[in-house]
């Protein structure tokens, strides 16, 4: 499926200045899910956003009035570590967050973001902390992402360039359908398999053994 292309983005930012924020926190497993994708915005950070009775915890960053419509999130090292659940980027996306800025990301989460039109932007930790503290102190600060130019700017004058894999960038900017793209390589895949079948026949089971 194609994603909405992501080229530029501007708006409010939610600083969540913790390291190792895991996908169990981003998208808790104790919430009823449907086998078909649905709006998961209420799942996002459920146990940090709401108390056991479902009432908002006013101190949590996404419950602060100026941050309720955040499109950016700022976090510390290893954001999205843990479970591979794709409900984590779906919940972020459905909430409206299209760019997460952190010093590093969990590998599976990062790949899941790119597949779902969310830009995982890596900045040095001192820059993230600096911007995070500024944004924490002043909720009026908004950010701007220019993905083709690979820049992040803030309304307080903060500006930096970032690196991103060309492949990831292209996927996000064009909102590409990755499967459709690979299926144009079907001849390569079939040629690989034909040769591989001769070298490693045990990889290609003729039939499963009886249970």
């Amino acid at each position, binding site marked *: 499926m194609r994603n909405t292309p992501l080229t530029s983005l501007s708006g409010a930012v939610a600083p969540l200045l913790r390291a190792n924020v895991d996908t*169990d*926190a981003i998208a808790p497993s104790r919430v009823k899910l449907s086998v078909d994708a649905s709006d998961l915005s209420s799942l996002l950070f459920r146990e940090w956003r709401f108390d056991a009775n479902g009432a908002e915890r006013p101190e949590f960053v996404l419950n602060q009035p100026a941050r309720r419509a955040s499109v950016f999130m700022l976090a510390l090292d290893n954001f999205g570590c843990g479970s591979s659940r794709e409900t984590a980027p779906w919940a972020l996306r459905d909430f409206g967050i299209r760019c997460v800025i952190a010093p590093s990301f969990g590998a599976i989460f990062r790949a899941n973001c790119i*597949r779902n039109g969310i830009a995982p932007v890596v900045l040095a930790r001192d820059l993230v902390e600096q911007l995070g503290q500024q944004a924490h102190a002043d909720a009026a600060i908004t950010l701007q992402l220019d993905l083709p130019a690979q820049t992040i700017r803030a309304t307080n004058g903060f500006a930096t360039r970032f690196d991103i894999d060309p492949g990831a960038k292209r996927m996000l900017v064009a909102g590409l359908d990755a499967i459709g793209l*690979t299926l144009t390589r079907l001849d390569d895949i079939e040629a690989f398999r034909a040769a591989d079948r001769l070298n490693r026949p045990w990889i290609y089971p003729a039939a*499963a*053994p009886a249970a």
Partner: protein
Amino acid sequence: MTPPRTLFAKLWDMHLVAALDDGMELLHIDRIILHERAGAMCMRQLAKTGRKVYDPSQVFGIMDHVLDTRPGRTDATTLIPNGQTFIEVFRAEAGAAGFSLFDLGDVRQGIAHVSMPEQGVALPGMSLVCADSHTGTIGGIGVLAWGVGISEMEHALATQTIALKRPRTMRIWIDGGEIGAAVSAKDVVLHLIGRIGAAGAVGSAVEYAGPVVRAMSVEGRMTLCNMAVEFGAWSAVVAPDATTLAWLAGRPFAPTGAMWDRAAESWADLRSDDGATFDAEIRIDIADLAPQVSWGTSPQHVAGVDGAVPRLETIADNVARGATETALHYMGLAPGQRLRDVAIDAVFIGSCTNARLGDLRAAAAILRGRRIAASVVKAIVVPGSSAVKRQAEAEGLDTVFRDAGFEWRESGCSLCFYGGGEGFPPLARVASTTNRNFENRQGPGIRTHLMSPATAAASALAGHISDPREVTA
């Protein structure tokens, strides 16, 4: 002469279909593993786009996440809201697509990462993906295995490939001692995470090597690989050797006869060449390693069982200090508190980390002829697969666990997280052989202490965190 290559480079190159634009490469995927939680969603998504499974003979489904583990279980006994739908949809989709399913009631059912190598579905030199972050476990037998999300899984199902950028490599060399029952692979990997941190190898392809790994059982190697994701690794692998081949020979899906010989011959090259270079190298020495226990809410928060929770003033980095403070608040522990003084309410022996036969034997050896402390209100053993359960019962281990006061369960992911929809009593403190001590992972407010099966068993007897080396035979 070809330059020396790492095991990882060999595994990568043998699956390379094509170099793509932008530094991406297209890799062939030899085995695709689906469980019912992600699998049901994934098959539905695929159907929506009108795409089909490329080669069902290379896809294997299994029930582990949603399925209940209580005795007498059925589809309907799962406590996960809407869980039965996931089970039923996944079963129907597997049937329609025509791939094998290790279903409820099948002895091949179990936790995916335990059952697939045990059945010989996964073999050295394969590339394998599963929509689960602990897929790297299977690297313990020399498989290039990694976890993916649902979208990437759809890609694998529809094309039998995944497009990736070649990751950085890291070798972790383990030296200096012997693994026994009281100091296990789990202790080694917990110690390692404590040392390099939860982001110590973000995105890297890790190879475990060195004399300790060579001497280690296949089960122990899988425990090491299982927790590589807890220090951020993309995958982890151990070079297959005679130990691996002896372990795999005769497994139901493994090749036989001349085909086995041919496969085994090809596997002999699956090792890093002398002189191969890695982007990063780490050496750890496990001489004098004590059993390890986690005290916080990240797997990097670990100490020896004879140690203590850190004092905040000893932590120079302000982020680490803040994280420690948050973790101790959640865990209800005081800075400087001795770990052995920490009373536990519950014990969980299970998960893709530590529920293979050797793990159950290690715990049973401690528990045999003893009773868990009266203060331990819930103690559960969940075998890693139905085959492990059957074998353990043949050895009488179920009786040892039951006599000690444990529940003996059917196989599945169970209380490692929300498997089957269960949780521990609110705020319970749990001695757990699992891989994640994240906030709320095992239930709202649950305080998880990660440890080995032997340490969990010793702690169950004492009613507080306890050193298995002090339980005399």
